């Protein structure tokens, strides 16, 4: 009887503990295989998640997306924001894969070594973008010296000499706890670069001792972050355990993170239902499947917390197409406006999100909620851009038809022949081949990826456009690439229309706009507008944020008004069913620190959608207060 009582007591105690909430374990899945543990090179979100939680950088983003101290305790910049100085926390050890302290201390040198590792082309860190190389003094030159030496093009210098020149690159450690960056131009948004994996530290002595094996296994690297990798099995399992020597250990509520490799989303949901997971991501199909079950109350979507929120999708039109019919039309503003108003973007979204397809529309190329001026005003609230954003779903079939009529009047002779276009064959092989006759209907090739949803989307878009403008006026041919839109369609110019998506790299409108100018890195349509180019160039020279954003906003408004690209949607929906309390963990639009589990609270039961709504209201109230400060 006594034993029974004692047993009952234990059970009750355990139950009480469970009901109280916080779990110290987080179980989730990953679908894209992590490739290696070399945290400087993170091609998949799995890699990024691991890197963010096992390594710390100088700064990180908190639950409001604000940049807060991480391994750096404090920082300052000079007046024109070209020199940034970071002060490190003292006495923090590197930890090994058993969670033991090593003799190495995290010091300023480790950050210099990190960048040195990244900057050597031999190490194949291909995410070192030209944006970053050109930002830090001397980095681009250093990188290209090495590239040229390796290619045998540069003979007046040995590799060793070139490597020695790293001392001239704009990163230095004047003392063990100070890191100084020198930049090529005023950069008020520099902190948004530092949350990238490229600026993580590495311990040189350890790196030298493992050589090429750096990061091929969990014991072939050291940890500076909140967790260390306790177990790592290829295509199976990643287990993280809390680092007991972490500087911010009290904020780490989840002590064990278990990530299992699961490819099929249906299995993921079933595992969640059986209590094997703390969180499951849902596609539109799964949401629908759970609609009338008891699980429906737990489903909600929070786009800004999606990992691809700051990605923008837009339609690219080929202004220099080899297809003479399309070329004639696309260079006509009225035709582009007809497309702008004639593509029913909401309907296209229904294939991903049948519930709130309009909620994920994006009308601008620069995402909202990522760029703020000194007063905390969002860039997308600036005049010009603000109106475009406020237009919401601007689809209007009648308007589109009117514009199309105007275009026809300008481009055809009234009897169905397109002016100045002679018959010919358009060779987009192996994607498509067209015989154009210089007469209506206007024939063009829409290129799509071959997966199921994109195939459906292409068929829908074709039906939509042919219905809006009439089959006698327009005829869409669907072409498909194998898997690489850029290499198969964009670069060889084998398309008339396609959609593509672009990540927003750092906290400044230039991240998108500066590469959309004539000859810009993502000007895939090959249009050219001197007025837009000039506005962007002007804005780039300004350091006062309000002024800078005002000019950028003007440029973007003009860019969208002239329909050089047709913005469409933000990156992905984020339906989920989860035991993680929303808004307890970091967020943000770029870099990797937003993937941290720091502060994350996992409860025993799933969060209801209702609870999410109230937490959301609370969060945005708090956020407003935080940015007003």
């Amino acid at each position, binding site marked *: 009887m006594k034993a029974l009582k004692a047993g009952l007591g234990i059970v009750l105690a355990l139950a009480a503990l469970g009901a109280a909430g916080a779990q110290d374990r987080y179980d989730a899945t990953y679908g894209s295989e992590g*490739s*290696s543990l*070399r945290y400087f*090179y993170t*091609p998949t979100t799995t890699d990024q998640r691991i890197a963010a939680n096992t390594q710390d950088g100088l700064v990180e983003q908190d639950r409001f997306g604000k940049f807060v101290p991480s391994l750096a305790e404090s920082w300052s910049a000079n007046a024109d924001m070209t020199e940034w100085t970071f002060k490190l926390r003292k006495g923090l050890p590197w930890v090994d894969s058993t969670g033991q302290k090593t003799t190495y201390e995290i010091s300023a040198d480790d950050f210099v070594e990190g960048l040195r590792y990244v900057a050597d*082309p*031999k*190490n*194949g860190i*291909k*995410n*070192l*973008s*030209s*944006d970053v190389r050109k930002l830090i003094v001397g980095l681009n030159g250093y*990188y*290209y010296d090495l*590239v040229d030496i*390796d*290619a045998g093009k540069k003979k007046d210098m040995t590799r060793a000499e070139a490597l020695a020149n790293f001392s001239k690159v704009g990163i230095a450690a004047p003392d063990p706890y100070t890191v100084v960056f020198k930049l090529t131009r005023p950069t008020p948004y520099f902190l948004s670069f530092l949350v990238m994996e490229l600026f993580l530290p590495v311990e040189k002595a350890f790196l030298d001792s493992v050589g*090429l*094996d*750096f*990061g*091929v*296994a969990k014991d072939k690297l050291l940890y500076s972050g909140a967790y260390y990798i306790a177990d790592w*099995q*290829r*295509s*199976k399992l990643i287990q993280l355990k809390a680092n007991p020597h972490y500087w911010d250990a009290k904020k780490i509520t989840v002590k064990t993170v278990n990530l*299992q*490799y*699961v*490819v*099929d989303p*249906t*299995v993921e949901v*079933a*595992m969640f239902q*059986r209590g*094997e997971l703390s969180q499951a991501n849902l596609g539109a199909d799964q949401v629908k499947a759970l609609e009338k079950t008891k699980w429906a109350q737990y489903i909600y979507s929070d786009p800004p917390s999606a990992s691809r929120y700051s990605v923008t999708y837009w339609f690219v039109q080929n202004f220099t197409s080899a297809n003479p019919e399309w070329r004639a039309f696309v260079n006509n503003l009225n035709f582009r406006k007809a497309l702008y108003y004639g593509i029913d973007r909401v309907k296209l979204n229904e294939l991903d999100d049948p519930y709130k397809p309009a909620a994920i529309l994006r009308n601008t190329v620069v995402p909202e909620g990522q760029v703020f001026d000194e007063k905390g005003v969002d860039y997308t609230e600036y005049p010009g851009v603000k109106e475009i954003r406020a237009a919401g779903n601007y689809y209007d079939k009648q308007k589109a038809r009117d514009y199309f009529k105007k275009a026809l009047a300008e481009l055809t002779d009234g009897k169905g022949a397109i002016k100045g276009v002679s018959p010919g064959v358009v060779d987009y092989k192996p994607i498509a081949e067209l015989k154009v006759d210089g007469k209506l209907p206007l024939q063009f090739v829409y290129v799509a990826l071959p997966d199921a949803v994109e195939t459906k989307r292409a068929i829908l878009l074709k039906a939509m456009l042919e219905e809006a403008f009439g089959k006698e006026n327009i005829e869409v041919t669907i072409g498909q690439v194998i*898997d*690489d*839109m*850029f*290499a*198969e369609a964009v*670069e060889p110019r084998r398309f008339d229309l396609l959609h*593509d*998506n*672009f*990540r927003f790299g750092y906290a400044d409108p230039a991240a998108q706009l500066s*590469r959309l100018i004539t000859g810009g*890195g*993502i000007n895939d349509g090959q249009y050219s507008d001197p007025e837009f180019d000039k506005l962007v160039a002007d804005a780039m020279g300004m350091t006062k944020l309000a002024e800078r954003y005002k000019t950028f906003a003007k440029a973007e408004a003009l860019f969208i008004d002239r329909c050089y690209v047709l913005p469409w949607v933000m990156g992905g929906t984020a339906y989920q069913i989860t035991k993680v309390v929303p808004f307890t963990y970091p967020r943000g639009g770029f870099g990797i620190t937003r993937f941290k589990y720091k502060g994350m609270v996992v409860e025993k039961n799933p969060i209801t959608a209702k609870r999410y709504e109230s937490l959301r209201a609370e969060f945005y109230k708090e956020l407003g207060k935080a940015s007003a400060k």
Partner: protein
Amino acid sequence: MFSYIVKRLGQSLLTVAIVIVSVFLLLRLMPKNGYFTREDYVSLDKEARTAYLRNLGVLDDPFTQFSRFMSGLAKGDLGRSITVYPRSPVLEVIRDKAPYSLWFGLAALALSMGLGLGLGILMARYKDSIVDGLGTLYVTIVRAIPSLIWLFFIQQWVTALLGWPMLFYEDRPISWILPTISLALSGIAWYAIWLRRFMVDEENRDYVKFATAKGLARGRVMRGHILRNALVPLVQYFPQQVLLTIAGSLLIESIYSIPGMGGLLVNAIRQQDNPLVQALVLLYAVLGVAGVFLGDLLMALVDPRIRLADARTKGGEA
């Protein structure tokens, strides 16, 4: 026999060599754009991309690459993966993954032979009876319904019904059962259907009629004559089946999240991980060729009528 084996060995080496060289050359025909993502094209100019490729070693001329591969091979070093698991030694990757595929494969093979041959015998012995009908039904269903569909049902429903885990866990033997059965299902059908076919073919042979006429019991005829002869054409696939279990199953391993070799080759090809592809092709070619060789030997052993070499000494022609 000995000289025959030596000759066949030489021949097998030649085959492996041809396979390696052809795959090697085919890989060099692949376009290079598989190495970059959309973002890479934006952030890296042509020179930087070239530098990246050069450091992967894929820009060297084919001969240099080939001799590098061969000299590494001579030292027992298969190189390092370049894109799938950047910088991980290929040997380590294979060592991590192969055991899973091997054990599951062998278990499934044993199961499918045991059940498949049994079923085949029953079906042939009681031809046109209810057993035969049910067996045919099973075989037909396994073959006719796309495997994706029934594999999916097994995972979803059977695990829910029995309360078993949906994925494979190394430390929970109960989670090993469904993947093994799933792997064996089509093997059972394969063995059953072909054994039945060959036994039925064999049953009409004159020697069988003779044996029956002589008054031999039906069981004896079945075991001693029909079964033995019907097994001959099946036996030669056996070594290859055993050896190639190491290649794993793409579908089943991904469904149950078994970290085996299943998707590795396809992944490596799609990501153009040349060192990994070459190593895997080498491994599979050696095992495949060895399997065929052993299969032929085995067939000669069980069927005296087959003479593999033009031996001067007359074989045991009955």
